[in-house]
């Protein structure tokens, strides 16, 4: 028994040594350092690979962008883009010296227009712009445009027909709160198909389209007859590629033509409005054939137009004639109404005017003592109704024979997105009242514009 105990003790004493003998030989310091070095290198490399993978992923990932031009989502290759833009016009209208105010003085949301536009498959653009202004909902723009080539674009849907110079200017860029009288004689928006493009590096622009054919100042969503209008415009900016004094000189001519035939319940004829948005001319209408003037054939519009901007000064001019065959009962005629405007602007500080508004060189920042840009503006416009209109087709006691308006304005561009506008405009009329001339319209406008 004693021998067994001795052997057991020896075995227990020897056990740790035996176990140690089966372990791998202890690593040297160099080997441990080498092992640690490899671990660090592996970690570094994994980080490197992760970064490469992230960079690779970023190439194929879309981008979300927010900035002064709005908000956008863009695919990595730029072939798919969605932009959310919009603008709001908060206006004030106050009559000056009018004993009998034609309308209540009011603040109003003149335009509330969210804009959804974008690109699919690289060359196909779309734009959807409703308007919730003045308490109504109107779809202003909804179109698709294929950009096959700078010289060849095809647009289909609802948009501005290529006729009026000031009408084609965005509402965010116009010089005054309300457009001038010639806008009465051109279409506002219509449904149609248009080809257009820029030639010679933008020196020549053209547009030619087929449209339903809306009345002057009209904004239509469907046609009321089977005939269509053709509208076209060619515009030259011969020095646009240079840096000379005439770089921002543009001039051109636009026209539209189509057959329009109305009925006593849908006359296919327009009314004309003052800058204060009051109707000052309309054709006779009582829903009977004998008492209603209707469109009776060809309508032709013609508009030479142009602008010139140099340094702080800008000038915009357009002339429009709208010629329309009309009939009332057994009497028919061809009437030609004419209108023109000349508008000048002077940016007295902080920027230069262009057809696309003023891009202020600084933004309003009291701390930095920067104020944005200030612009003075003046305009004269008039609209003359064809003499033959009276008395057969319109009543001289309710429709004016002519309107002549002059306006002055001050625009303060706080930055690219915000603008304050203050205008005063007086319009004189010939005829349009039970006795003599319609009372002059004197109106003060204010506008707070936010556009993004």
């Amino acid at each position, binding site marked *: 028994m004693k021998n067994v105990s001795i052997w057991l003790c020896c075995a227990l004493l020897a056990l740790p040594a035996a176990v140690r003998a089966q372990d791998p030989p202890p690593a040297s310091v160099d080997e441990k350092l080498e092992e640690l070095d*490899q671990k660090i*290198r*592996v970690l*570094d*490399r*994994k980080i*490197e*690979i992760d970064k*490469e*993978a992230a960079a690779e992923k970023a190439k194929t990932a879309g981008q979300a962008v927010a900035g002064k031009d709005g908000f956008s989502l863009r695919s990595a290759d730029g072939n798919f883009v969605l932009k959310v833009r919009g603008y709001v016009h908060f206006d004030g209208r106050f009559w000056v010296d009018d004993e009998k105010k034609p309308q209540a003085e009011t603040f109003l949301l003149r335009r509330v227009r969210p804009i959804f536009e974008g690109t699919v498959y690289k060359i196909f653009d779309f734009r959807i712009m409703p308007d919730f202004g003045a308490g109504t909902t109107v779809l202003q723009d909804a179109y698709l445009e294929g950009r*096959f*080539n700078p*010289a*060849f674009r*095809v647009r289909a849907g609802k948009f501005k027909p290529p006729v009026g110079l000031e009408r084609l200017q965005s509402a965010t860029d116009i010089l005054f709160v309300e457009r001038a009288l010639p806008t009465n004689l051109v279409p506002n928006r219509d449904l149609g*198909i248009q*080809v257009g*493009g820029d030639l010679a590096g933008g020196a020549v622009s053209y547009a*030619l*389209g*087929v449209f339903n054919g809306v009345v002057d100042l009209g904004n239509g969503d469907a046609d009321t007859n089977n005939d*269509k209008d*053709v509208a076209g415009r060619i515009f030259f900016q011969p020095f646009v590629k240079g840096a000379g004094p005439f770089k921002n000189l543009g001039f051109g001519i636009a026209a539209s033509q189509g057959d329009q035939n109305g009925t006593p319940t849908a006359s296919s004829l327009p009314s004309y409005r003052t800058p204060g948005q009051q109707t000052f001319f309309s054709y006779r209408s009582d829903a009977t054939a004998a008492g209603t003037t209707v469109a009776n054939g060809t309508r032709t519009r013609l508009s030479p137009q142009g602008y010139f901007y140099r340094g702080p000064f800008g000038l915009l001019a357009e002339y429009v004639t709208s010629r329309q065959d009309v009939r009332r009962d057994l009497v028919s005629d061809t009437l030609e109404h004419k209108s023109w405007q000349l508008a000048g602007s002077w940016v007295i500080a902080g920027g230069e005017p262009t057809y696309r508004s003023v891009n202020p060189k600084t933004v309003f920042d009291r701390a930095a003592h920067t104020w944005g840009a200030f612009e003075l503006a003046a305009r004269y416009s008039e609209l003359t109704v064809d003499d033959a209109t009276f008395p057969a087709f319109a009543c001289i006691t309710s429709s004016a024979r002519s309107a002549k308006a002059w306006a002055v304005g001050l625009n303060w561009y706080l930055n690219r997105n915000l603008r304050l506008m203050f205008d005063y405009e007086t319009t004189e009329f010939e005829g349009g009242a039970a006795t003599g001339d319609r009372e002059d319209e004197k109106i003060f406008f204010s506008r707070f514009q936010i556009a993004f």
Partner: protein
Amino acid sequence: MSHLKFLSTAALGLSLLVAGSAHAAEIKLLNVSYDPTRELYQDVNTAFAKAWKAKTGQDVTVQQSHGGSGKQARSVIDGLGADVVTLALAYDVDAVANSGLIAKNWQTRLPNNSTPYTSTIVFLVRKGNPKKIRDWDDLTRPGVSVITPNPKTSGGARWNYLAAWGYVLRKFNNDPAKAKDFVGRIYKNVPILDTGARGATVTFVERGIGDVLIAWENEAIFAVKGEHGDFQIVAPSISILAEPPVTVVDKVAAKHKTVQVATAYLQFLYTSEGQEIAARHYYRPRNEAVAAKYAAQFPKVQLFTIDVFGGWTKAQQAHFADGGVFDQIYGAGR
């Protein structure tokens, strides 16, 4: 409606003008390839452009895109406008063909199953072979750090994996369980998986990680002759014959109107000049005369083909599909 007729005529005329101006543009090809072929195709492209110019008078520019073979195939399927693909393995080309961009019979359109050159898989070790790597068994030893890319994204990695698997099948009389265990032990020694073969070479050669790189033969020779350090090649007793295929991406080339020049580009790879270029970049040429001329630069290795696995489709499904053997062994080992 005379206005409409006028508009239609004008639009048609302008469209023809646009199409005509596009047709006059310079010929461009895009070759979407796998990771280690950058230098090969730089030389091929220059030589082909010269030959094409001499033959037709036309200028042609071949652009290159490189990455893991599987990832490149996915990019082509997703819209990358490749006129030709020169990928690491037939399965990846089949994937593109299954998307409808390439005719199903693509492998029969050029000689040697549309593989103008071959390669194999070897080991690259550090100078002096400090871990005494001699064959596949040595990669399973504890303490041996093995660098190989991810078979999910890299064609070369799939060749590496199958080369090891094929070795074990031969050694253990086609016993898949032993093969799975053996390959699993190799991947336990892999500390990092790059997405492509060139990335794995960077890991081993430039970052100094690992004891052995399982690599394309051409990539290993390229590293040995490179500037980043002292390496040597160890040829295993058995390896796989890697056959990287090439083909025209029919629908893209048709759309680009480049079918003729794209086909000529790939045929150029079979010419003596093309084969010489491949050999100079350490790809094994198909042309016997060129192969004999460059035989000395290639180690002698006993080679088996993908047929051991029943072809690429079966190999892919069994080993590399989601939930396949690779997922089982690599997931288990992590």
